[in-house]
């Protein structure tokens, strides 16, 4: 009895699911799997803004669904499967840890398109996408190098992974370029999210003489610490953090997923979706540079905007030789630019940064 009901419901569900794949339904359904709460004010918040932009763009033609705070591992597989079973046409999985689960589930639903953020594994129905945040870091580095008076720049890292190390290197290269005396103090918070610890890290860096704080953690805690300390400048991270402008926040890197999400949804609607590897930066609008405030002198602002323009149009690459690694070995020859593979797996500091990457 039980077995037969099970089989019956399975058959029914498969039938339903099969129906969902056909073009019978009018709305395109887009699912989002989020690693944190949409109220985190940072990473997940910005992905959710992208989702809302999709809704706004397509109105009645699209239906979006999301599940927040989904643990990486079996929970994420279940949530993806559930979305696929409920008829999602396109599913965005927005954390590196969803990589293997996305590949697993995509294999089971060949007609559903998957988009995995920040990973490197693809399939016929799995694309990957990420943002070249290091392009924004170059601009921050330039402003930081020009603005610092103590020549000490504090950097709050989350975990020592390529994404974060790449940002440190990019910022350092461009700070050093305009200010040869500049020194980076790097503190690893060993957490993605702990506002109190981020605040502490910022305070410690300021106490140790830093008058510029760069952060690769998402909360505004370092901004508040800088504001309290007075003459310290910061940059917004993930979101604009405009409530701390014009001081201490003088500019920001904004994760802007909306154009990509809209384009990919459109591709599914048009039937033109194919598996791709997208790594977009300032040019495509995936990395936004928040308004540079008047706390920055006009000529520095102009230089920064010029740098932004040259990165955006592709005439300049933030990792352009000659560059050496921290140990003095050659990294890039004169005029050579780093290829994406090297950038993706970057696990070394460039020459001049002191200290070791913890492991």
């Amino acid at each position, binding site marked *: 009895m039980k077995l037969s009901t099970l089989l019956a419901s399975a058959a029914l569900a498969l039938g339903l699911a099969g129906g969902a794949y056909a073009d019978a339904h009018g709305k395109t359904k887009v699912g989002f799997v989020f690693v944190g709460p949409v109220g985190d004010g940072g990473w997940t918040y910005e992905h959710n803004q992208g989702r809302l932009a999709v809704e706004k763009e397509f109105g009645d033609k699209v239906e979006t669904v999301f599940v927040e705070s989904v643990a990486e591992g079996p929970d994420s597989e279940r949530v993806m499967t559930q979305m696929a079973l409920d008829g999602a046409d396109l599913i965005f999985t927005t954390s590196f840890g969803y990589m293997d689960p996305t590949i697993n589930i995509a294999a089971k639903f060949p007609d559903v398109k998957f988009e995995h953020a920040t990973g490197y594994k693809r399939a016929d129905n799995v694309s990957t996408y990420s943002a070249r945040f290091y392009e924004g870091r170059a601009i921050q580095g330039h402003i930081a190098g020009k603005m610092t008076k103590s020549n000490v720049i504090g950097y709050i890292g989350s975990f020592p992974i390529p994404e974060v190390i790449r940002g440190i290197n990019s910022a350092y290269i461009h700070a050093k370029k305009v200010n040869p005396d500049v020194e980076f103090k790097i503190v690893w918070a060993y957490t993605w999210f702990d506002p*109190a610890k981020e605040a502490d890290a910022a305070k410690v860096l300021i106490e140790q003489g830093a008058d510029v704080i760069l952060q690769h953690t998402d909360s505004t805690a370092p901004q508040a610490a800088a504001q309290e300390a007075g003459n310290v400048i910061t940059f917004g991270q993930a979101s604009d953090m405009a409530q701390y402008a014009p001081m201490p926040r003088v500019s920001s890197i904004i994760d802007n997923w909306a154009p990509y999400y809209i384009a990919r949804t459109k591709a599914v609607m048009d039937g033109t979706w194919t598996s791709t590897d997208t790594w977009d930066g300032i040019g495509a609008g995936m990395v936004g540079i928040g308004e540079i405030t008047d706390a920055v002198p006009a000529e520095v602002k102009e230089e920064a905007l010029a740098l932004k323009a040259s990165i955006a149009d592709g005439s300049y690459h933030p990792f352009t030789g000659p560059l050496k690694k921290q140990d003095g070995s050659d990294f890039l020859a004169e005029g050579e630019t780093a290829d994406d593979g090297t950038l993706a797996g970057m696990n070394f500091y460039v020459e001049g940064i002191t200290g070791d990457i913890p492991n």
Partner: protein
Amino acid sequence: MDLSSINPVLFVAGFLVAATPLIFAALGELVAEKSGVLNLGVEGMMIIGAICGFATAVETGSPLLGFAAAAVGGAALSLLFAFLTQITLANQVASGLALTLFGLGFSALLGQSYVGVKPPRLAEVNFGPLHDIPVLGPILFSHDIVLYFGFALVVVVWAVLKYTRAGLILRAVGESHDAAHALGFRVVRIRTLAIMFGGACAGLGGAYISLIRVPQWTEGMTAGVGWIALALVVFASWKPWRLLLGAYLFGGITQLQLNLQGAGVAIPVEYLAMSPYIITILVLVVLSADKSAAPASLGRTFHASS
């Protein structure tokens, strides 16, 4: 490596601030545990305090009103725990865990419209010339009123527990609820009050994070401070003064490792982050010779007929 870049004065001033949420939360839990109640819901009460305080401060523009609301919010949530454990006689460990789950969820619902909002600042207390004393000035006389209040509260709790009749009754209830009941004390009422005091303190600690130390509101922002507070009570072997010391040690180690990193010292961060917990365990072992430390009725359910 450049250890000279660590400024000892600012370092000390920094961990005084970092320790304050811990002091509040742990002090409240200490009083609850002294009465024989183990409330594992500290994290939940803290986060409720964090959002109640934040929302009230933003709406009224007054951080102090925010702190008052945080205390009320924390105490209100703790009443739920008191109802479960004192009236319906539910297990304290499970009730506390449920309280934390509920508090984390409920605070997120309350705080939906407060993400990204900047709260009003609470100014430093003006000590006039005292502030300018070298070394001592920045360490002792450059903080907000709530930090001093936390310190004062430690003194008050210590004095009340040690010298007053109320403190004696509280300890008696914690040592043997049956004996206390036989002597005519209202065990349930006393414990409920102790739990509410714990909730109010946890709420204040949470608000200190959301209004002063960070200051912002995001879901789950207490990030485990409530659990550290629980450890701290044991570390302090239920003595207010040692609690103060322990809070500075716990706060200090985090500050120290961040300072050392900033100075370029290659330290294994994970292993240093473990150290407060390992030290607490060692302290427990050392203290174990002193059998009188833990309240004898801790975690046990009381019913008058049993």
